[in-house]
């Protein structure tokens, strides 16, 4: 029955994706940005679904199994403030500039803002290097979740293959509009199912109070298993939202500025709805299924459902997990495709004047190519690559001085931005090679996350590089900081 429910769900996903294609206008802007027509509710669902991965359901409960309720403050509630604040301070102005100048990618924006092709290439390379492991985690995580939920009837390779095939189908067919519509369905599914699972399991345990009474009291204390340095430094990790290419892409799709209002206000509530049940089920699971070691605990949610819920719910939960995986994977693959098509292919000699139809074709081919490559890599990857997730977030968070300077510091220059990008690349490589399986082990095992020192170094590089270089041309600055009450003529960048 579990498998039948999952297959029904995947059929629903494909149907929604294909229905969205009926509105396709055949242009590059429509394929990559849905012609900037996304309204408030779909924008909220796509931003949230893209940001949350399978980790929010399975990984969070696994972490809470070992570390207790503090996982919610460590990984969720800081995002509840930082993410919407970034939507307001970065997303809104970037949307306005993107609309005014016709930008399709963040690399385009930074290239035009600082007038440097070298910066654009360096940034493109770093963004791809940080995003590919993130994609790989999604493909691998989906396969593992499939295998665990179907108790091995669907092997890992088949689960990953199915997920890649489904995502390829609706993303290549309908582009961003299909992605946004499907993300809305998927986000509703994993939010609703997480809450439903919690209610069913807790009822079976005789209520929340008696169930919590059986848990190790240390897991119910906020700071018993999480250090102060780790908690404080971890609040910087959600800054990664400000530089994720897939989040940037969704910002640009908003129909009008007011479409941001709902995501800005409702985002913290969505985080609570998904993470509180996941964390509590992990904590309760520590008493019900004791003795799980390390990453084994990631299966605690599945085990709790098997123990305390009907089989149909297991099928629905599987659908919810796959929804969380695919809602990130589709946007990441599409954003990589947009970056490649707009920032690499269209700048190659002979391809500058590529027509809209060819842009769409190239974008589609790239989506299939990148998912195929990630699938092949997932076949040889080990479970330990999940640790790469923190590193991916760390790299993106350390790059956040770029959009801040681009939007709020007129004196910033290409040299400063390039210095920041290179500092992040160098420090990231150094820290990664020095201790990638345990980021918190850096700095003498103090628990301080690498982002806590990579971010200040990157900001310092931006400031020093800018002040030591020639001030930017007035005309270029004026394009991005027009005097109040004036409007510029929109220009389509190449």
């Amino acid at each position, binding site marked *: 029955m579990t498998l039948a429910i999952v297959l029904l769900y995947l059929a629903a996903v494909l149907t929604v994706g294909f229905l969205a294609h009926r509105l396709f206008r055949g242009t590059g802007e429509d394929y990559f940005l849905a012609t900037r027509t996304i309204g408030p509710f779909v924008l909220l669902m796509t931003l949230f679904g893209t940001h949350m991965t399978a980790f929010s359901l399975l990984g969070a409960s696994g972490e809470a199994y070992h570390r207790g*309720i503090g996982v*919610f403050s460590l990984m969720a509630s800081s995002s509840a*403030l930082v993410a919407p604040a970034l939507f307001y301070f970065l997303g809104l102005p970037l949307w306005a500039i993107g609309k005014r100048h016709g930008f399709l990618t963040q690399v385009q924006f930074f290239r035009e803002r600082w007038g440097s092709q070298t910066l654009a290439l360096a940034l493109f390379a770093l963004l791809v290097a940080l995003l590919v492991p993130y994609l790989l985690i999604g493909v691998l995580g989906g396969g593992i979740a499939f295998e665990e939920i179907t108790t091995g009837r669907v092997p890992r390779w088949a689960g990953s293959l199915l997920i890649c095939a489904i995502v390829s189908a609706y993303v290549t067919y309908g582009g961003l509009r299909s992605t946004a519509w499907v993300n809305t369905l998927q986000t509703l599914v994993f939010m609703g199912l997480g809450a439903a699972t919690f209610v069913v399991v807790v009822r079976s345990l005789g209520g929340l109070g008696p169930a919590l009474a059986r848990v190790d009291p240390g897991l119910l*204390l906020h700071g018993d298993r999480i250090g102060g340095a780790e908690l404080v430094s971890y609040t910087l990790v959600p800054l990664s939202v400000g530089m994720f290419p897939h989040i940037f892409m969704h910002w640009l799709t908003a129909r009008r500025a007011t479409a941001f209002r709902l995501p800005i206000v409702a985002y*913290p509530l969505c985080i609570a709805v998904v993470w509180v049940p996941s964390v509590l089920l992990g904590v309760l699971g520590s008493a019900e299924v004791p003795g799980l070691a390390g990453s084994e605990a990631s299966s605690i949610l599945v085990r709790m459902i098997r123990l305390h819920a009907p089989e149909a719910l297991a099928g629905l939960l599987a659908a919810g997990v796959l929804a969380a995986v695919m809602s990130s994977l589709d946007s990441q693959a599409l954003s990589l495709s947009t970056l490649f098509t707009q920032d690499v292919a269209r700048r190659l000699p002979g391809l500058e004047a590529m027509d809209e139809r060819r842009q769409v074709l190239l974008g589609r081919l790239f989506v299939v190519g990148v998912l195929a490559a990630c699938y092949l890599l997932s076949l040889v990857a080990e479970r330990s690559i999940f640790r790469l997730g923190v590193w991916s977030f760390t790299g993106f968070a350390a790059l956040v001085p770029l959009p801040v300077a681009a939007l709020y510091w007129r004196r910033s220059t290409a040299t400063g931005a390039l210095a920041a990008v290179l500092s992040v690349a160098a420090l990231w490589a150094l820290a990664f090679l020095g201790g990638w399986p345990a980021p918190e082990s850096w700095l003498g095992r103090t628990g301080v996350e690498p982002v806590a020192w990579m971010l200040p170094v990157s900001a310092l590089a931006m400031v020093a590089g800018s002040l030591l270089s020639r001030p930017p041309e007035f005309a270029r600055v004026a394009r991005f900081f027009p005097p109040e009450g004036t409007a510029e003529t929109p220009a389509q960048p190449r």
Partner: protein
Amino acid sequence: MFAALGLLYLLHNDFWLWSEPRSWLGLPAGLVYHLGYCLAAALLMALVVRRAWPADLPD
């Protein structure tokens, strides 16, 4: 308004509750605090949207 955002960011580090064994509303105190933190973030962002919405954005 923006000072309130900074203050709320600092309030995330609730060291005073770290060893609080009591339950609030049937849930561990630390978890209730951070659930409340999410609600406070939503309320504050609603105020920001209402009172500090940029006036110069295109339609």
